[in-house]
């Protein structure tokens, strides 16, 4: 049964094309039903900001034309125009593609974790709409299993690849869970704001915002459900806060070693993480030498993100190997499943022949002891098993090419006189 995938993604189509094809989750039921009526056995639709892909199981490949027409119609584009951006995958390529997509290997940022949830959602919507057949259900389950294996074994999505996330990752390396920590944001620089937002998303206890303009501090604090404080009260908050983000436009240091030493003296073994995202720098670099204080500037964080990105590329190679093995395993399982009816029929047919010929033979041989009869029966059974061994093996571990497998099946059916 052909397995196919028709779609486009951020590499093959610009956003202008992708946005015309993007699909509303709430209308997915209707969309899937409409696609199924093209003569498919099953369909699931993956629609994210970076890709739109229809995963199909169909009686034959002819339906592809209709699916492309359906997509062109939906995008309001000429078929010939849309075809420039589309890719059409078949059989093993579909399996490999989905395994890679779900593991984040085909994403814009390699290893990003959101895509796994999006693939799950796409299949769940199809399940709810009743458009998943047995083949797509198997594919769905296997895809999720492989993606989990890839992420667990390689840890591909574990490290941050952007400056704000790198700051969050480092904070976690120092404090573990960030819940219950207090953050002090100095200034209102864009990247500082973004970093504070990511930290706020980690359920920190409180975000204090200090800015030269108090009004702007209040505005920012409202965004983080935090508290605006006067810029002059930094000392007091340095002692109470665990993470300090400096992102002011000041051309000089706003945090000096003496202030940090005073703060640490009252913190009793509690560390202080200082993130300097300003250029020129706002936190005196000498602070890095103080025990219990960890200072990272924008270059340090960028370096962390770069190293992580390189590491993800290395882990992607490891992931590709896992996926290669999984695709082969899945293909073999599908081939074996596909071959089951022929194998059963073949065994039945030869068993029929064996039973008939055995009966004839036993009649000719005359009276026999129970042991002799058992020996003859065993001989005939073993002979049949030996004859069937290679044909069954070939049917189970057949070629990668579906056409070749079909041809082999036909040949075997013909040779052994099975119904075609």
């Amino acid at each position: 049964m052909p397995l196919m995938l028709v779609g486009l993604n951020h590499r093959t189509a610009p956003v202008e094309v992708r946005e015309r094809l993007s699909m509303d989750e709430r209308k997915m039921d209707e969309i899937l039903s409409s696609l199924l009526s093209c003569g498919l056995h099953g369909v699931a639709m993956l629609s994210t900001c970076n890709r739109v892909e229809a995963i199909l199981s169909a009686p034959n490949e002819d339906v592809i034309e209709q699916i492309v027409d359906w997509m062109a119609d939906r995008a309001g584009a000429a078929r010939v125009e849309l075809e420039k951006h589309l890719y059409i995958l078949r059989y093993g390529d579909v399996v490999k593609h989905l395994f890679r997509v779900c593991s984040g290997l085909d994403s814009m940022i390699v290893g990003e974790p959101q895509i796994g949830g999006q693939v799950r959602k796409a299949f769940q919507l199809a399940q709810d709409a009743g458009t998943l057949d047995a083949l797509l259900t198997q594919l769905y389950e296997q895809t999720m299993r492989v993606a989990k294996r890839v992420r667990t074994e390689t840890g591909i999505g574990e490290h941050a690849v952007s400056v704000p996330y790198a700051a969050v990752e480092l904070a976690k390396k120092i404090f573990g869970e960030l819940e219950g920590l207090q953050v002090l944001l100095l200034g209102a620089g864009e990247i500082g704001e973004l970093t504070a937002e990511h930290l706020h998303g980690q359920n920190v206890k409180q975000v204090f915002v200090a800015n030269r303009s108090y009004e702007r501090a209040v505005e920012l604090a409202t965004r983080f459900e935090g508290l605006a404080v006067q810029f002059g009260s930094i000392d007091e908050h340095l002692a109470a806060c665990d993470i300090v983000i400096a992102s002011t436009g000041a051309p000089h240091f706003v945090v000096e070693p003496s202030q940090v030493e005073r703060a640490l003296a009252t913190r009793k073994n509690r560390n202080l993480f200082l993130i300097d995202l300003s250029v020129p720098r706002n936190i005196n670099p000498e602070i890095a030498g103080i025990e219990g204080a960890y200072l990272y500037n924008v270059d340090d964080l960028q370096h962390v993100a770069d190293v992580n990105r390189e590491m993800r590329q290395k882990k992607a190679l490891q992931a590709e190997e896992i996926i290669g093995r999984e695709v082969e395993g899945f293909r073999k399982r599908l081939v074996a499943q596909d071959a089951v009816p022929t194998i059963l029929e073949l065994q039945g047919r030869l068993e029929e022949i064996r039973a008939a010929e055995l009966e004839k033979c036993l009649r000719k041989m005359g009276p026999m002891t129970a042991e002799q009869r058992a020996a003859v029966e065993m001989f005939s059974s073993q002979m049949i098993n030996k004859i069937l061994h290679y044909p069954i093996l070939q049917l189970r571990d057949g070629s990668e090419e579906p056409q070749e497998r079909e041809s082999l099946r036909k040949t075997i059916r013909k040779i052994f006189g099975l119904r075609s």
Partner: protein
Amino acid sequence: MNPNLSLYFALGFYGAGTLVALLSLFTREKRLQLAGLGLMVIGFVSHTLWIGTICTLTGHAPITNLPETAAFIAWLVFVVELVLFIVYRVHAASFFVYPLVLILLSISAVVREPFAHSPKLLSRLFTAHLLFTTTGVAALLIGLAFGLLAHLQDRALKSKTRGRLWDLIPSLNVCKDVSYRALSIGFSVYTLGLVTGFLWSYKTTAGVVALRTKEVGAIVAWVLFATVLQSYISGTYRTRKTMFIGAGAFIAIVVAMLGIHHV
């Protein structure tokens, strides 16, 4: 059947587990780490069997001579390591704890001492002394292992470079927290061990408490551990300084252990 058979099995599995775990340090494969843990757990089961056998044969806790004590401490250290692994999923501690367990059990296998049957050793005070001391030492060793992890994590964060252990070590706070808890629990239990040991010695020697290698090592270790703990409590804890003092305490414990057979 040789009663030490399960000891040799345990030693074999611990050896293989330690090797696999150390190998995973270079390959960074999580499957290898888990394989190492699996081998260690099999070794641990065999180790437990051996301790059970000794208890049955001698009729008292397996802590009356050096081989028994070393094996019992190794057993306790591994129990704590297992508990911490379940709670914190810390793989990095295994790089210190597995070799430590292996070394301690190797002492049990190499050093041959007859099973002690002295009636003096059957007193409750002596049993309490041995149990408190070994448990305390096991907890203190775990405290040191996590103190070392905290030091490595601190160095990596300060130098802004990741070592091989970066992904395997938990957060700095967790390392410090576990180290502190293990040290404070270990110190209290160890102190009880020293007090009961002193009382037992006082009782059995009619008031004469000799200061031999074992006693001196134990007291020096106690003082050094007290210093580390004090730095935690007073807020003057420094990972580097703690490591040096901890290393001294570890040596003192080894010296005290080597003196055990002078009982």
